[in-house]
Each structure stands twice: as C-alpha cells, then as structure tokens.
C-alpha cells in the first residue's frame, strides 16, 4: 500500500462527513482507531486556542474510541432530551490538503462548515472551522488516529454534539 492520493484523501473525509450526515454512527465510529485522539480545543481569553489539554480546557478531549462510544450511547439512549429529536446536519468539507504522507501515516488539513437544523425549536446554525486528521494504515485499511476540530465560532447555542462538528 502507499499513501492516499490527494483526491482519495479528500474522498475519505467526504465519506466520514456523509456518515455523520446520515446518522450512520456505527460506521462512523469504525473509521477510528481504538486509541484515537478526538480533540476540540477551547479558546483562551487572549484569542488563541488552548494547546495543552492536560493543563488547559478543551471543548472535547478524548483519547480512546470508548469515549465516542459513550457519546453515541447517550445520543441513542432515549434518556437524553437534548438528543431526543436529533438536529439535522450537513457537513461541507473543502480545501483538503495532504500535509504529510508516508506509506502508513498521513496528515490532512481541511476547512469545514456544518449546517445544523434543530428541528425541536426550528433553529438553524452553522458551525465552522478547520479539521486536522491523522490517518494510519491498520490491517490494510486507513483509519483515523487523530481528529482535531478547530471550531472558530465557539459560542455554543444550547448544544453541540459529536455529529454537529
């Protein structure tokens, strides 16, 4: 195997986005390695982002896919009013760049807009920012070993879940 071409890399990200748009969360989570990083830093008051997740706050910081599984369990539990009527989402990923590439590891950067429509209150909102993906080749398949979500409009209207970014 060799690294994904730029168009294959972009397609990988589009497929990930499509799974979230369609609510196919089991397939989405399968894209991640067991030890994956899933990280959305917060913003400091000086206008920079937090960089050290062990000393500074993040909006979301997970090491381990188990955490994403917990999130999905809550979303689908039927016991979370915030997840009862799931917002509709549409991920637009663009400007995909291959930043680093070797035979078994790649780093991608991209821009995102996630349009969300909260059916419960008939309210639309767009989250936007940049993604940094780290992909690794595991048993012949490319998996997400790390996903950093740099959310630019970080004032959260009521809720933001893993499907909204």
């Amino acid at each position, binding site marked *: 195997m060799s690294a994904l071409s730029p168009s294959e890399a972009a397609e990988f990200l589009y497929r990930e986005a499509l799974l979230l748009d369609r609510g196919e969360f089991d397939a989405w989570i399968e894209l991640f390695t067991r030890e994956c990083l899933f990280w959305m830093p*917060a913003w400091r008051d000086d206008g920079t982002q937090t960089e050290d997740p062990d000393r500074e706050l993040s909006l979301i910081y997970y090491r381990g896919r188990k955490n994403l599984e917990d999130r999905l369990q809550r979303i689908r539990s039927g016991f979370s009013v915030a997840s009862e009527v799931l917002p509709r989402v549409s991920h637009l990923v663009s400007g995909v760049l291959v930043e680093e590439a070797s035979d078994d590891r790649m780093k991608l950067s991209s821009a995102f807009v996630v349009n969300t429509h909260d059916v419960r209150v008939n309210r639309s909102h767009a989250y936007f920012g940049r993604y940094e993906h780290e992909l690794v080749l595991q048993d012949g398949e490319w998996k997400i070993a790390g996903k950093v979500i740099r959310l630019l409009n970080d004032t959260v209207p009521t809720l933001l879940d893993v499907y909204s970014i």
Partner: protein
Amino acid sequence: MSKQFALSDLVDDRPDDGVFRINRAMFRDPELFDMEMKHVFEGGWLFIGLSTQAEHPHDFFTGFIGRVPIIVSRDGDGELQCFVNACPHKGVRLVQKKCGNARRHVCPYHGWTFDSSGANKNIKWKKGGCYSEAFDSENHDLAEVARFGEYRGFLFASLNPDVPSLEEHLGEASKLIDLLADKAPNGLELVPGRVTFTYAANWKMQLENCADQYHFTSTHPSYIRILEQRAKEEADEVVKSSIGASDFWTENASGVTGGTMSFDHGHVLNWGIMPPSSAIADFERAEELAEEFGEARRNWMFNMRNLTIFPNMQIAENASSQLRVIRPLAAGLTEMQTWCIAPRGESDEARRFRIRQYEDFFNPTGMATPDDTVCYEEAQLGMAEQERPWLQGHARGMTATVEGGNEYADMIDVKPARSVLADAQLCDESLFASYYRAWAERMKEVVA
C-alpha cells in the same frame, strides 16, 4: 417612577399559608426584563471576575455589568480598579480585548488616551480644540464604577452607590467562599479556556437549576447510565466520576444526604454528602486539609456544593469545579460564561483529572449540560401559558425549612437565614424563595 407591576402578581410569598409561588410572567415579560437589567444587574452588587485574571501591574480584563461594558485594571501601583469601558468623548468602547497588559489605552475613534488607573492622559489636539472652560472643568477620566470590592480574590462591583457594603451583601455566604479559598492555599485560578454558550430561555432558569437537586436523576439519566456502565467496566481511557462514586443523589440513599442553606440578599447553597475519595481531584490533599482544618471542615471541602451568589455567580463543586457567570441578553435569551476553577499549584495529575471530569459533565459540548439547557428552553415555551400563571416548582421542602442552621452548618460555622436537612428524595425547592426575595428587594422601585 410609576410602578408597572404589582409584586403580589409576580411573587406569591405567603409563608404563614405555606405558599410560595412564581408567576410565569417573571420568565417571559420583556418590559420586566428591561427593569431587571436596570435594577437587578445594574442596580446592585454583581460578580465580575477573579483578581488572578489581572494579576500583575497594568493587567486588565473586560466584561459587562448588565448591559454596561467594564474594564478591570491593575494600575502601576498594583491596585485593582474597575471602570466603565467607554470613552467619555463619544461613548466608544475603549478596550475590545478580553484581557491583556497595557499601560495606556487609546480610544480607537478619536485617540483619547487613558492610563491603567483610568486617568485621562491625552485629549488629541486639546490646545487647538477651542474648548470652553465648562468642558475643561469636566472630569475626562474613565468613569469608576460606584462600588468595587474584593473578597478572597472574588471581585464584585455595583453601578449603584446606594447598596450595602460588600461584606454585608455576602454576609454568611462568604464562609462558603472561604471553603473554596481555604482549599487553595496558593489561590484559585481559572484554567485557560473560557467556554461560552447561550440558551433561548430566561436567566432565572439557570439561576434555579444550579440549586435544583430535584432535576438530576430525571434530566440526566443518559449520563447516569454511562456512569453506571463505566463503574462496571473500569476502562482506563474514560474518566472516573466523582458523582458516580457517591450516593447522595440516588433514590435509595438513606439518612441525611445533604440539604440547602438560604442566605440574605439572595445567596443559596445546595449541598450533598460526597465523601473524600480518589474520584475527586482534590483527594491528593485530603489528609493535609484534615490536619490543617480538622476533619469536619475538610469533609465539607469535598461535599457537593452548588453555591449561588445572587444574581450572577455560581460555583458548582460536584462533577468537577466550575465557575459560571450568568449574563442575561433578553427575556428569552441568556449567555453563560463558564470556566474550570482550580487551586493553583495542584499536581499535574490532579489538574488533568479535574479538566477531564469538567469537560465530560459541564461543557455544552459534554454529556450533561445540553440536557439542562434544552429543558430551560422547553420551560420557556411553557411560560407562555397564562390561564394558570402560578408555577408549582417552588414548593418542595416547605415544611422541612427551619430558621437558621443545623448541625452540618455548625461544622463550618455558617449561620444561614434558613436551612433544610434532606434525605435523597426531599430535593428542597424552598431555597428558591431567597432568590425572589432578593429580586423583589432590588426591584422595589418598580415592583411593589
């Protein structure tokens, strides 16, 4: 000023009849909201930040008192001061940044310049300005807020000079701030990373929710199930929960599990027994704290404590440690500014643990808070009902309320105005009366 609302139409406070009720209009009326901004938020003491947010000479941070922009600045002599963050010339907001360090602040519009003590240092082209003597006799410095004070690193200000002293305003509730401050011998700090969210409902929904033990098991069952599952699995990659390690909130817990305290001027505490355990970040200092303060006081430092300093500051010590500042934007829109508040100098491991627990539970991107804020929004919709205006949500604990404290309050020498000792299913709501009595006191010019 004419009274536009009758208090008895909004707050039905008849203790002798066992009645305390709030009218739904309190949550939805835009005219009442404007009055609240003027009289509750701009008419009395408000929490504005921590002294550690402007630690060194010329450090500053900005914020709001009600609708009025403010700047808190440490001057060259190290004195903290608080000004209206608006240039006297044309009213332009002087400083746009949330925080920083500057000896001089220059207005972006016409260049008037102020030092870190608020003094006007330059009016551009003053000599050529053909100003009248009347102008020269005016004060051109930044306007100081009427009252400004610090209690153990917590900063408060009031735009209205006619308020009790800060000491009197905090009263016995200051001893609950002591509990936080004593646990942090090197001071308290805000962990870098401010999280801001909004919800489409009245600010009093958040005010109440922090002190509302009743909602926990019915609003957060999805989270509780995850805690139960995590307890069984003991996986390394998920964070251990302090709530999961205690039982004060569970249906079957027996005996006294906690309670509430109500204070004058609207401050309240909702608390639950949470024994010191390795599921709490402060556990590394548990023995040291017991030696220094005695076991009873140490145990209180570990108890679940949701403290509200009326009307805008809440400190939640339960799943982690959070500072919340409530900023109402409209009758049906509220902004919450939230931080992880932590003792300085704790170990790297404790800090990491505290942050992970915080993100899990408190963030609007976490697994609990969205279920609260969605409930606030659903409540806001229901506040439109007018046929039966009186809510039934302030009645629990009515017959359990006693004047003064109890043996638990005595352990930390706190003398609340009223208190309730509770088993797990009592979930007192009578403490909310303290909010609305303070609200009525601040609104007395317009609501009587």
